[in-house]
């Protein structure tokens, strides 16, 4: 089976193409760095099964962050037979730089020229034949978003040839490169890179290549070349000029006179005052929409399930059997009726934000605030993703450069209430106490994140680099891609959380049926009842919540021994509800998140965050317990 890797610069449409080829498996979004790990898929071309690999975008083979490194590692380590180099036709000059580097690998490749629609809108018309001749590689124009040209591209895979040409610099530059290359050829072993490319990168000062030269006889030659070539700048400038040349020779640009809608929108959304007003308005609107949409559905479903429960009670007379059946049915009901009405719109709206290209703009607006927390604007992408699910939020730290900003971002992103925790904020606090409490809780959460960030910045040593971000154009997602994406994000809940919920509900039912509660509650009483003034029974719920946060609210009323969520206010007073919500908002991330933190910043970081969030939750919940009787 031949395997094909999709390689291209960030945000050029690799994942979109991948999803067209192999079915929706890789999340695409309109900001650079949406994909941070590889995804494999399969498809048939005629009768042949081929493997396709989607990889994080990379600006060049000399990586900058961990996501890019992943791509280079995959490119050199796994057995990739054909490279599909995706080139964004609307930013062709910059994108061709990567193509030139890939050409020097001397492996079968095809260029997929994507975003042909956007190039045209920008007035760029590319002569495919010409470009093909200049590059010496097959070029297939595509519009990945609409699936145009994809079939043709797939057909070309089996004809993929090694590139016929190489990037040649001016005589003088070539001479300097050659000296280094020849020495490296004889003296430096265990390098998978083509020797010339390797030497060029070393001259340009790319650390991982340079370090091979340490303590070899080539080191003085490298230093010489660096001196002669202005620390590699001469090479860079020549290559850039070459790319411009390629563009000018293969494309015609018609000046478009009308000022693009884009800069008009940016004038508002990135305005030094209104930009912030809009940003807050947008987020307030999101919470408002999710909340006002969710509550009526929650009401409706609760009523329906009350009826079903009553029906069961009068028809099943064996008490144990009744409890188990009721546990199972309530679990399903609560999942579809209470969780989904909040989860679905939340994830849907976050998908919209990701796909229109608003996130990089928030990164610009928030950069200065983020500096106070020891990170820069790009971390905003993690935070916003965090309102959906903490796991991708943590993984998004891969596009950050320094250890310090990764750590702080992972820490703070795990404090952002994910959509599962929002179920409690909206479905409990909001449902019983009202909308203002929902907004208050989100605002309070932001405040705590800010304070925690300021503290972390002080505690952690080291510098954080600054923001460098390519701002993509606004793009209109189709409802279909949004729905598929939302389904993709929510799938896990349906397949994993619902079965867990049913099991959890049954366990809770059995616990109370056999009257184990008193034993279990003994463990939780000191902290929960003693310190926080909550019913001890919520302890089990909080434990299940660590497994999967979506379970928290749904299991709450069962644990309290109630037949419906609408009765929670008969056992918990408003102050207790607030205390519980605050606790849930901050305490220990779910296991999947802990695993992600472990992977991104190590075991020590994961352990610290787990304990720190627990302490923070207890502290804040305790304060809430004391203060809240005064306000509710």
């Amino acid at each position, binding site marked *: 089976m031949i395997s094909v890797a999709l390689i291209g610069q960030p945000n050029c449409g690799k994942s979109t193409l991948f999803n067209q080829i192999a079915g929706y498996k890789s999340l695409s979004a309109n900001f650079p760095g949406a994909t941070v790990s590889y995804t494999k898929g399969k498809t048939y071309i005629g009768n042949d099964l081929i493997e396709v690999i989607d990889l994080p975008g990379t*600006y*060049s083979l*000399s990586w*900058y962050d961990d996501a890019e490194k992943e791509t280079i590692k995959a490119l050199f380590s796994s057995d990739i037979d054909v490279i599909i180099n995706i080139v964004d036709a*609307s*930013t062709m*000059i*910059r994108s061709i*730089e990567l193509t030139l580097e890939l050409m020097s690998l001397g492996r079968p490749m095809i260029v997929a020229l994507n975003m042909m629609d956007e190039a045209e809108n*920008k007035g760029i018309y590319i002569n495919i034949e010409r470009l093909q001749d200049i590059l010496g590689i097959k070029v297939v124009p595509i519009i990945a978003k609409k699936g145009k040209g994809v079939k043709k591209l797939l057909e070309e895979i089996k004809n993929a040839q090694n590139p016929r040409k190489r990037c040649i610099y001016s005589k003088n530059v070539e001479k300097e490169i050659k000296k280094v290359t020849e020495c490296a050829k004889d003296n430096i072993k265990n390098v998978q890179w083509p020797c010339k490319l390797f030497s060029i990168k070393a001259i340009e*000062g*790319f*650390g991982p290549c340079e370090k091979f030269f340490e303590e070899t006889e080539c080191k003085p030659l490298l230093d010489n070349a660096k001196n002669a070539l202005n*620390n590699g*700048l001469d090479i*860079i*400038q020549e290559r*850039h000029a070459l790319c411009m040349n390629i563009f000018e020779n293969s494309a015609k640009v018609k000046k478009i006179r009308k000022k693009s809608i884009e*800069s008009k929108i*940016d004038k508002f959304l*990135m305005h*030094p*005052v209104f930009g912030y007003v809009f940003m807050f308005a947008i987020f307030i609107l999101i919470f408002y929409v999710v909340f006002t949409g969710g509550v009526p559905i929650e009401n409706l479903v609760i009523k329906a399930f009350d009826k079903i429960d009553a029906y069961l009670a009068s028809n099943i007379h064996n008490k144990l059997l009744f409890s188990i059946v009721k546990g199972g049915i309530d679990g399903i009901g609560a999942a579809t009726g209470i969780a989904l009405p909040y989860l679905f719109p939340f994830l849907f709206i976050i998908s919209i934000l990701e796909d229109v290209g608003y996130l*990089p703009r928030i*990164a*610009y*607006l928030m*950069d*200065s*605030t983020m*500096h106070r927390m020891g990170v*820069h*604007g790009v971390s905003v992408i993690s935070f916003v993703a965090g309102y959906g699910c903490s796991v991708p939020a943590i993984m998004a730290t891969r596009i950050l*450069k320094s250890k310090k900003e990764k750590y702080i971002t992972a820490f703070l992103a795990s404090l952002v209430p994910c959509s599962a925790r929002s179920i409690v904020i909206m479905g409990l606090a909001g449902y019983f106490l009202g909308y203002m409490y929902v907004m208050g809780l989100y605002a309070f959460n932001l405040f705590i994140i800010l304070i925690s960030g300021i503290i972390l910045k002080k505690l952690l040593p080291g510098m954080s*680099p*600054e*923001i*460098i*971000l*390519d*701002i993509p154009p606004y793009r209109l997602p189709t409802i279909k891609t949004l729905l598929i994406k939302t389904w993709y994000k929510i799938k896990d809940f349906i397949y994993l959380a619902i079965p867990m919920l049913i099991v959890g509900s049954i366990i809770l039912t059995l616990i109370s049926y056999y009257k184990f509660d008193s034993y279990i509650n003994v463990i939780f009483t000191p902290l929960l009842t003693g310190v926080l003034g909550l019913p001890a029974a919520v302890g089990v719920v909080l434990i299940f919540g660590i497994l999967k946060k979506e379970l928290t609210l749904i299991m709450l009323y069962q644990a309290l021994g109630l037949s419906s969520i609408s009765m929670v206010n008969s056992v918990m007073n408003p102050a207790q509800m607030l205390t519980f919500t605050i606790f849930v908002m901050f305490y220990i991330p779910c296991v999947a998140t802990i695993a992600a933190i472990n992977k991104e910043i190590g075991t020590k970081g994961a352990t610290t965050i787990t304990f720190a969030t627990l302490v923070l939750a207890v502290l804040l919940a305790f304060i809430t317990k004391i203060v809240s009787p005064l306000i509710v």
Partner: protein
Amino acid sequence: MKLEDGKKNIKYKILSIEGGCRSKDRLIKLGLIPGSIITIERSAPLKGPFMVDVSGSKIVVGRGIASRIDIEEIF
């Protein structure tokens, strides 16, 4: 003159980027190369970042980085 001190909507040429940092690498890949022509589109308040236009791409760079990029007005 530094990029940090540049004015909006005027064409500048990048003269040099102070070395030493890895961020230089990223800048170069995004087209901010000595010799490139840029315009500053906007800057965020409270010492926020700059957004510049380089051959049609919009790039946001932090203020600290902007203070390390030398530019010159072109006519």
